[in-house]
Every structure is written in structure tokens, then in C-alpha cells.
């Protein structure tokens, strides 16, 4: 089970039997629209507020995952999820609708990996048979809470990132066909004293490096073990910083092997500055794009390293540096080749 200090090895092979991936209009114009189950044309999803729209995204992605798996929601023991907004209310309200026993978690944009790791652990240890795990974010709710009103004409610097509108959800089961979660490394808070909330990629890269390094050491594998190392939302700057740092520390990671969800979801030319971010970023791209690749056999093993910056608007105003975290989860194709 525990390997080293902070890594779990899941020998009972918890399986991702289905996923639900929902996106908004901006994602529809992006790089990977085919990997979404539903793409909405309207930022509001016909709701009264952006927060309700985000709740709706979460609900939909759960429903899709359930529907695809043919599992009744009464069979599911837990719903483990979280998001960025106000005491994670969009997620909690979605949990009310879904009606599955609920564990609310928060680690900002690393929530996807945290919920997946926890779900896999619970399944692996026999604590549950089916768990829904996922997360959501909405561009407008995040802008409103962390930055300016959406219609305010503030200039974003080139280091800033664009919050994904969407939700990604995975149904994890004790057995069944599909990609297998093999291990997870829980990261620790890394604070390098960076205070600029418009440069989260640069701040989070340190956490990603720490977790990736620890993962390889404690799982006792080489970077070449994975076909892809998928970081959450480091963006251009964070990816470059972390890759250079990893190479400096003697980890032999190839350029093509090291991809970022925040750089995968959108096309060149969309006004996203340094890349995408938000909890949904890593969830949507991993559960949609990369799991599809895994199922098609294009890759066999991937390591998801979702990164999160755990600041609040208040902590930024009080001049506190941004604490960052990264959790790693490895996903590999199952014995049936799926």
C-alpha cells in the first residue's frame, strides 16, 4: 500500500469504468472539442447565475458518467468532489441533487487528482465499490471571485491564465473494464514566496517538481516508465520552469513526454495568455482527451500531476505568498488492453 512517505500503490486495481466531460462555448472553439460529451453554447446554461451554471455542469457530468456505465446511482457509495468557489457551494449543491453520500474536498486546481487519489484509495482498500470523483469550474465565477467583474476592462498580463468552463467526472469501480489507477502521490504545500496571483503557473511549477520527483523516488520507477507525464495547469511558463528544474535534478524527461492540460485544451490564438487553468482544466482534459488516447492504445501509462495554488483573494490582499500543491496519480491501461 504505502510506499515511501507519501505514495500509495493500488494493487487491487481500481478502475475508471466511465467518465463524463462537459464544457462551455469557449472550450467548443478549442483544440479538443471531440473529447467532450456535452458542449454548451451558453455560459449561463439557462440558469439565473454563473454559480448555478457551474453547479449544473457538475450535475451533468456526473449523470453522463453514470449513464455510460449503466450503474444506478444507488449503487454508488461516495461522491468525492470540490471546486474553487465560495466554500465549494456549486459542488455541494450538485451533491444535493445527485443524492450520493458526499465528501467535499478543496485543493484548488489540484482537486481532480486529489479526488481521484482518494477514490482509488477507498476502492482499493475495500471501503467502497463505486465512487464518483470529479470537479468543475466556470470562467465567470472564478473571474468574479478572484479577479474583476467579467465585463471590467482590466488588462491581463501575459503570465495570466484562463479558467476553464466545464466539469469532468470519473466513476471508479472495484472491477470492470477500463483504465486502472495504479498509484498516487500526495503532495505537500510548497511556498516559494511568489505573491503575484497573475502568475500561478510560475508559482505552481515548484510544487509539481517536488511531487514528480517524490513520485519517481517512492514508486521506484524511471520517467521512461510513463508514456506521458500530464501536468494540470502550469501553462507555458510553469511548464518550462518545471521541465528545466526536473532536468536539472537529473530526471530524464523528454520534451514530447511532458504535456500540460492547460496547453492542450485551447487552440493557438485563443486569448488565454499563458494557458488554461481551473479545477476543470485537468479533469476535463484527463478524463476526456487523455483517457480516450489511453483507450485507443496510443499511450499505455500516464502520470497525472494536477497542480493547485491555494490562495484566496483575501490572502493576496494581505500580501501572503501563494502556497501551492500538486498531487500525482498514475493511470495505466487495464489487463484487457482497454
Amino acid at each position, binding site marked *: 500500500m504505502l510506499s515511501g512517505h507519501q505514495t500509495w500503490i493500488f494493487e487491487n486495481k481500481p478502475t475508471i469504468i466511465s467518465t463524463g466531460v462537459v464544457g462551455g462555448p469557449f472550450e467548443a472553439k478549442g483544440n479538443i472539442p471531440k473529447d467532450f460529451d456535452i458542449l454548451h453554447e451558453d455560459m449561463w446554461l439557462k440558469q439565473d447565475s454563473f454559480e448555478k451554471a457551474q453547479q449544473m455542469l457538475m450535475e451533468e457530468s456526473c449523470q453522463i458518467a453514470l449513464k455510460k456505465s449503466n450503474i444506478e446511482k444507488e449503487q454508488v457509495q461516495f461522491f468525492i468532489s470540490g471546486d474553487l468557489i465560495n466554500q465549494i457551494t456549486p459542488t455541494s449543491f450538485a451533491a444535493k441533487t445527485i443524492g450520493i453520500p458526499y465528501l467535499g474536498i478543496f485543493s484548488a486546481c489540484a482537486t481532480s487528482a486529489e479526488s481521484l487519489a482518494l477514490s482509488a484509495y477507498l476502492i482499493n482498500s475495500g471501503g467502497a465499490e463505486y465512487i464518483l470523483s470529479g470537479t468543475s469550474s466556470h470562467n465567470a465565477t472564478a473571474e468574479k471571485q478572484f479577479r474583476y467583474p467579467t465585463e471590467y*476592462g482590466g488588462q491581463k498580463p501575459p503570465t495570466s491564465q484562463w479558467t476553464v468552463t466545464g466539469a469532468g467526472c470519473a466513476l471508479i469501480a472495484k472491477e470492470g473494464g477500463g483504465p486502472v489507477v495504479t498509484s498516487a502521490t500526495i503532495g505537500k504545500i510548497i511556498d516559494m514566496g511568489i505573491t503575484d496571483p497573475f502568475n500561478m503557473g510560475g508559482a505552481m511549477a515548484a510544487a509539481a517538481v517536488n511531487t514528480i520527483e517524490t513520485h519517481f523516488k517512492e514508486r521506484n520507477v524511471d520517467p521512461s516508465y510513463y508514456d506521458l507525464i500530464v501536468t494540470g495547469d502550469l501553462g507555458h511558463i510553469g511548464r518550462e520552469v518545471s521541465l*528545466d528544474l526536473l532536468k536539472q535534478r537529473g530526471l530524464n524527461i523528454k520534451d514530447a513526454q511532458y504535456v500540460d492540460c492547460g496547453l492542450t485544451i485551447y487552440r493557438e490564438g485563443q486569448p488565454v495568455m499563458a494557458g488554461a487553468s481551473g479545477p476543470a482544466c485537468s479533469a476535463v482534459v484527463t478524463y476526456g482527451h487523455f483517457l480516450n488516447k489511453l483507450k485507443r492504445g496510443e499511450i499505455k501509462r500516464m502520470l497525472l500531476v494536477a497542480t493547485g495554488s491555494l490562495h484566496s483573494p483575501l490572502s493576496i490582499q494581505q500580501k501572503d505568498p501563494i502556497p501551492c500543491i500538486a498531487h500525482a496519480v498514475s493511470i495505466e491501461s487495464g489487463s484487457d488492453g482497454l
Partner: protein
Amino acid sequence: MADKKKKNLPPEAQNYQAFQEEREVKRPVLLNCIKAFLVGGFICFIGQLISTFYIYYFHFTEQTAGNPTTATLIFITMLLTGFGIYDRIGQFAGAGSAVPVTGFGNAVISSAIEYKTEGFILGVGSNMLKLAGPVIVYGVFSAFLVALVKTLLIKWGVI
């Protein structure tokens, strides 16, 4: 001050920050300034047009045309903000669209629209000046200090 703060950090963090800064995309200051100059200048040019219009066709002098000009510009800002155009101009122009009074209007109007979902009293009413508040607060306070000093100086016959 920023340097002082850095010195209190552990060396590891200092090294990391230097490492990170090397790879950080720098803000294109010169290009941004040119854009700000052109857009800001253009907004003021429009302002001059409007104010000339008021002087020629309405009962306003150079002195009194300022107020209707401001109101007109803010009205235009309301439309641009409501149709989702002003934030795009802002991303392009930076200070060019933030510094003119239209930017002040945009700050107030965008907050008002944004918090509509929280109701008109507690949402729109209390959040409207969230962004523009400091401008009014410190504008008034500094004007108070300046006017106070000036009035006293005049009273004492210094100027």
C-alpha cells in the same frame, strides 16, 4: 521594499524565484505604452469632439461643456460594457481605456452588472463602487488636504 522582502526568504525560494523569473514572459511595456497612448488619445479625441459639439450646438461654454461630455462618454461606456466590448478594448489598450473617465465608468457599470444576480440592493447597490470606490475615497481625501493647505496658505497671506 520588494528586495527587502526577498532577503527574508530561504535561499531555496530565492533561487527558485530567480529561476522562475528568467522564464517568465515579460510584459511588452513599450508595445503596451504605444497601445495605451493610441487608444487613450483616441478616447480623449472623441471627448474633445463631443465637447465641441456641445459648445457649437447647445448652450454650453468651454467651462460648462465638461460635465455633459463626461456624462455622454459614460453613457457610451455603459453600452460598450453591456454588450461585452469594453473588456476586450481593455485587454488591448490597458491603461489607455482604464485611465480616461470611461474606465471609471466601466469599473462602476461592470460591477453593477456583475452583481445583479445577488439582487439590486445588496448586490448592485453595495458592490457597485467595489472597484471605483478607492478612486472616490482618495480623490476626495487628497483634494481635502490640498484645498485645506491652499486655503490656509491664502489666509496667512503666503500665496
